[in-house]
């Protein structure tokens, strides 16, 4: 039991960790474009990114299950060329998780970038610095709280992920049986002690992360 418990907790952390890393890489460029550039379908893109906030996770779970199936084009393609089956695998849940946490990463970053006065950038450009250098030397240091919020929110949200995982996960220990699923499972089999163990760990971790975010945002004194 103990071993199962830690395996599940570690898996949950692994899923949340990878999701956060991947989303950070994708999220920063997207947030940058959305904050500063005039894009053609900007509002549509923003709306799409925010969809997970309003859409039930089961909608995504349903579409993923259909897409992942080897009976359909996408699933067949993956199976033939990469020997990959996404349903019931860590990778499959990871993709779902990345899509589902998009707004939690991108929105804080976008707001952070927008909140920096444009005189900062303009000053940097007039001093002959490139967009790239400006980004790393001027913008990033001025939005540390936003970055921490984005990372922490994404991580915390992933830990709480349930709907998609229960639909495409298949409850496989060490692969897709994350803590939220384990809690559901233990409650169903009337093992309240184990359910409580998982719930307590999740409760503490989430509380710590949110406290961290609020304490950082409280101290926010840019400029």
């Amino acid at each position, binding site marked *: 039991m103990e071993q199962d418990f830690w395996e599940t907790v570690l898996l949950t952390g692994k899923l949340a960790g990878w999701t956060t890393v991947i989303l950070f890489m994708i999220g920063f460029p997207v947030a940058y474009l959305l904050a500063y550039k005039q894009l053609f379908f900007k509002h549509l893109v923003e709306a799409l990114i925010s969809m997970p906030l309003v859409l039930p996770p089961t909608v995504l779970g349903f579409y993923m*299950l*259909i897409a*992942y*199936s*080897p*009976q359909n084009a996408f*699933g067949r393609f993956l199976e033939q060329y990469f020997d990959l*089956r996404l*349903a*019931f695998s860590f990778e499959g849940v990871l993709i779902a998780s990345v899509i589902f946490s998009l707004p939690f990463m991108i929105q804080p970053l976008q707001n952070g970038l927008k909140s920096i006065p444009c005189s900062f950038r303009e000053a940097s450009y007039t001093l002959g610095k490139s967009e790239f250098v400006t980004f790393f030397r001027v913008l990033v240091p001025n939005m540390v709280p936003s970055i921490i919020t984005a990372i922490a929110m994404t991580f915390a949200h992933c830990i709480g992920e349930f709907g998609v995982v*229960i639909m495409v996960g*298949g*409850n*496989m220990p060490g692969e897709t049986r994350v803590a939220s699923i384990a809690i559901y*499972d233990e*409650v*169903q*089999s*009337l093992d309240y002690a184990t359910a409580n163990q998982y719930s307590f760990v999740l409760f503490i971790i989430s509380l710590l992360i949110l406290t961290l975010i609020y304490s950082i945002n409280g101290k926010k004194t840019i400029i």
Partner: protein
Amino acid sequence: MKRLIISLVLLLTVVNIQAQQVNVAAAANLRYVLEEIKIAYTKQHPKAKVNLTFGSSGTLVQQVLNGASFDFFMAADNEFPVKLKDKGITIGPVTTYAYGKLAIYSTTLDVEHKGLDALLDPSVKKIAIANPETAPYGERSVELLTKKGIYDELKPKIVIGDNISQAAQYAFTGNAEIGFIALSLALGPDMEGKGSCYIIPREFYPPVEQACILIKTTVLNTEAVKFRKYILSADTRPIWEKYGYDVPSKK
């Protein structure tokens, strides 16, 4: 204002008494057969209102224990109803209403002719089974594989569905090549004819004896008593048999 509230309360009580409804907690393998029985029942009793909720037997027991307002519990085995009886929240006996059959289903492999050997086919990457902790059909499936000595070999391929319907859905969508399901689901309108199905011979597993029990409510739900009687009557026998169940012979 006061008068209005009083009359509203009275009205609601009257409505409540008039349309006494039966909330049935039913094991997921009963999905199609119970819908059909419900239609037949409401034809005979046009005023009756029967609500069906499906889930794994374990899930439903947990919900009942936590106060879900069910009147009647139809499990996928004869042990889960006893669990409720032991807690003293039921009325009357645990009664067997049908014997279910276990089957394997596939949309890609010809399991009908290959039988259980299909499980060892190299093209099989995932095998869907209902959660053995909460679903009796899942438990039977695991027992069967263990008895055949192939459980450990197949274990990495096994994916767990929350209940037998989800296991069936995994097999039906092709995300798992083979699913261990209840025969009744394979005979349902959604899956029949769209894949291949093999009924596991009786000698390989103990029969899935499915039993039901009435749940104690503050006021005795006479509608639930009536519905239970109907379920156990000879009227429903052809429907049960249509979905591959055997009916206890005594009635």
